[in-house]
């Protein structure tokens, strides 16, 4: 289908409208802003040159969003205190219109809500407020005063004379977002969802330079004259000279020095700026470095933070504290704050993160480029929530709260990813989100302990059921303690195989005692097992009630007696002066099972799970020792 073409009112060059509903476009020849009223075109001004862009998206780029094909037909560039972002105008196959927000390579697609109902007045807006739009519950995360920086291509409305615009951004826990646009009255509501560069299936992108997808430009440091190369051009708001550390604004025509190089302490990045490496399948370049610290109990804890850039994936961060590394991404969806086991927590994508530490982080030293206006001694409130190996961090300034998600990554992997020589710094201590090497082990060991203990119990029960418990001798006797010699020997009895023997002595003792000297004598070899047993039983009543002590029955167990023929020599003793006659019975059984060895086995089996549990607990204790919740 032929696209409508008209002559530019200013230079007569052909002006093509790709989208039938376009109201405004920019003449590609003279850069006049051309506004369409019915069939008439009117040149209303000339756009300023757009800032250099490192975005791969351009007018004409095609892609898909949730199955619908679209073409990029226009763009508005906004600038605000901390950087710039682009709103790419999308024309879908059904001729409907949408917007692709490209903020520091963080992408979101939204559409104008035609009948949004009553929207809050700008003056009423407060960060943290919650709003309901249809089924969506969103929280206001930032209010942004933005400046119109430039425009290109076709737009669905006139947007050539705007200057300051207030935007309010809202986010939901499920990656939906909304923008309240106060450039018109009544304000406009855009609802959308965050997406990724890959998910958009973009084609006809701007050609990519060699190497990592980073376009470079440069200037000379105003302080020391050293050459400064810029990589993420449009996204760079600050650059700290790698030679003198003077922090400068590359977007200012005069390259204003934001902060003179000072005689402050210098820190050296462990991985040099400009180093390229592959993380998660994408190639990143380290373009910035900062040293930050918090102070807890008058003690300073500092860490390195590297800024990584990929043209399509945007920014990532790499933090390093005493050999512990985290790869960090900013979050699109908003975590929900809650409590877990009585402590503050945050829930993100169904995972609960426990509050770890809240402190004020100070930027002490910076090198390289940053997409925000960075200054040494910048201070931000930082709250960390951990669910090893992940860590959620909320960084709060007066204007906004930024959430990021870090994943603990061993130094060896970082070293390999960035092809660094030698070994990474050795980790010291336990880091907040360091995965425990003992994770899951206690549960495994206790589960197996239970299984093995049950096995031991089953073996014991089988053994108890199958034991012979064979009675091989039984005899009843009596003696008078006054007798001079009460010793005697029993008839012989046979032990049919090597086994234990159980000798039970049942007496009629009451408030009396008896002592039996036994000797189990092998009638063939003359070998004897000599042992003595005391039997005593006392009872009575006192102020505490009835009491008893001892027992009139005694059981003795002889371990592993060899098979053979035996007799028992018995020598009873008693209270010599006035002891009454004592009657007693002796019973010998062989192969009587005992729970002793099974209990011992279970006891020994307990040792490994207890040790593993103690080690795991010790690791966790060391982790939480550094938190706000140390005990």
């Amino acid at each position, binding site marked *: 289908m032929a696209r409508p073409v008209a002559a530019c009112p200013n230079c007569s060059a052909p002006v093509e409208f790709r989208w039938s509903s376009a109201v405004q476009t920019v003449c590609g020849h003279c850069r006049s802003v051309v506004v369409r009223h019915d069939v008439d075109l009117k040149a209303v001004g000339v756009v300023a040159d757009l800032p250099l862009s490192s975005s791969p998206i351009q007018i004409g780029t095609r892609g898909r969003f949730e199955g619908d094909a679209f073409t990029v037909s226009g763009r508005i560039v906004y600038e605000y205190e901390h950087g710039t972002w682009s709103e790419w105008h999308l024309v879908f196959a059904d001729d409907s219109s949408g917007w692709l927000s490209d903020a520091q390579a963080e992408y979101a697609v939204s559409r104008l809500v035609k009948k949004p109902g009553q929207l809050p007045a700008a003056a009423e807006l407060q960060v943290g407020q919650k709003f309901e739009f249809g089924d969506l519950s969103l929280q206001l995360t930032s209010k942004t005063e933005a400046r119109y920086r430039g425009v290109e291509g076709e737009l669905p409305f006139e947007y050539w004379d705007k200057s300051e615009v207030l935007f309010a951004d809202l986010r939901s826990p499920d990656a939906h977002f909304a923008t309240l646009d106060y450039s018109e009255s009544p304000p406009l509501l855009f609802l959308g969802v965050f997406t990724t560069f890959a998910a958009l299936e973009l084609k006809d992108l701007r050609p990519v330079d060699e190497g990592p997808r980073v376009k470079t430009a440069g200037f000379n440091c105003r302080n020391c004259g050293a050459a400064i190369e810029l990589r993420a051009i449009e996204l760079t708001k600050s650059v700290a000279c790698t030679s003198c550390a003077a922090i400068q604004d590359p977007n200012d025509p005069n390259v204003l020095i934001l902060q003179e190089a000072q005689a402050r302490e210098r820190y050296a990045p462990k991985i040099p700026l400009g180093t390229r490496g592959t993380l998660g399948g994408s190639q990143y370049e380290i373009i910035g470095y900062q040293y930050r610290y918090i102070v807890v109990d008058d003690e300073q804890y500092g860490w390195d933070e590297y800024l990584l850039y990929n043209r399509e994936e945007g920014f990532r961060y790499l933090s390093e504290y005493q050999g512990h590394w985290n790869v960090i991404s900013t979050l699109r969806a908003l975590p929900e704050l809650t409590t877990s086991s009585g402590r503050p927590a945050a829930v993100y994508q169904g995972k609960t993160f426990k509050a770890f530490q809240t402190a004020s982080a100070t930027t002490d030293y910076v090198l390289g480029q940053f997409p925000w206006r960075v200054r040494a001694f910048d201070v931000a409130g930082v709250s960390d929530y951990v669910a090893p190996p992940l860590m959620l961090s909320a960084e709060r300034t007066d204007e906004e709260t930024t959430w990021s998600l870090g994943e603990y990554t061993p130094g060896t992997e970082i070293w390999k990813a960035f092809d660094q020589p030698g070994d990474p710094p050795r980790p010291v201590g336990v880091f907040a989100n360091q995965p425990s090497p003992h994770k899951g082990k206690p549960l495994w060991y206790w589960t197996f302990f239970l299984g093995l203990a049950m096995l031991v119990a089953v073996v014991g029960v089988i053994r108890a059921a199958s034991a012979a418990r064979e009675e091989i001798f039984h005899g009843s006797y009596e003696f008078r303690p006054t007798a001079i010699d009460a*010793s005697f020997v029993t008839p012989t009895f046979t032990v049919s195989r090597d086994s*234990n023997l159980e000798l039970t002595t049942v007496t009629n003792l009451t408030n009396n005692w008896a002592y039996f*000297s036994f000797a189990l004598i092998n009638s063939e070899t003359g070998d004897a097992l*000599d042992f003595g047993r005391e039997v005593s039983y006392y009872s009575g009543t006192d102020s505490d009630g009835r009491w008893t002590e001892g027992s009139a029955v005694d059981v003795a167990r002889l*371990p592993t007696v060899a098979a053979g023929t035996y007799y028992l020599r018995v020598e009873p003793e008693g209270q010599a002066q006035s002891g009454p006659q004592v009657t007693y019975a002796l019973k010998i059984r062989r192969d009587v*099972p005992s729970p002793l060895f099974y209990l011992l086995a279970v006891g020994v089996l307990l040792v490994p799970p207890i040790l593993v549990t103690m080690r795991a607990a010790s690791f966790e204790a060391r982790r939480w020792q550094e938190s706000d919740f140390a005990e």
Partner: protein
Amino acid sequence: MRLLYLIFGLMLAAGASYADYRGMGFLRPTELKNVPKSIRDNPGAYRSLYRGSSRSFGGK
């Protein structure tokens, strides 16, 4: 390590069963060798090692 624990546990179960079957124990009475056969006819001639315990007996 976990496999070792598993093997160790199985060995313990087998060992406990064997020790119980054999009637093993930790406290073994004093063993005496070559007790004269005449003891059968004269039990009083045997001198038990444990005779005449010095323990004091009595109730509460």
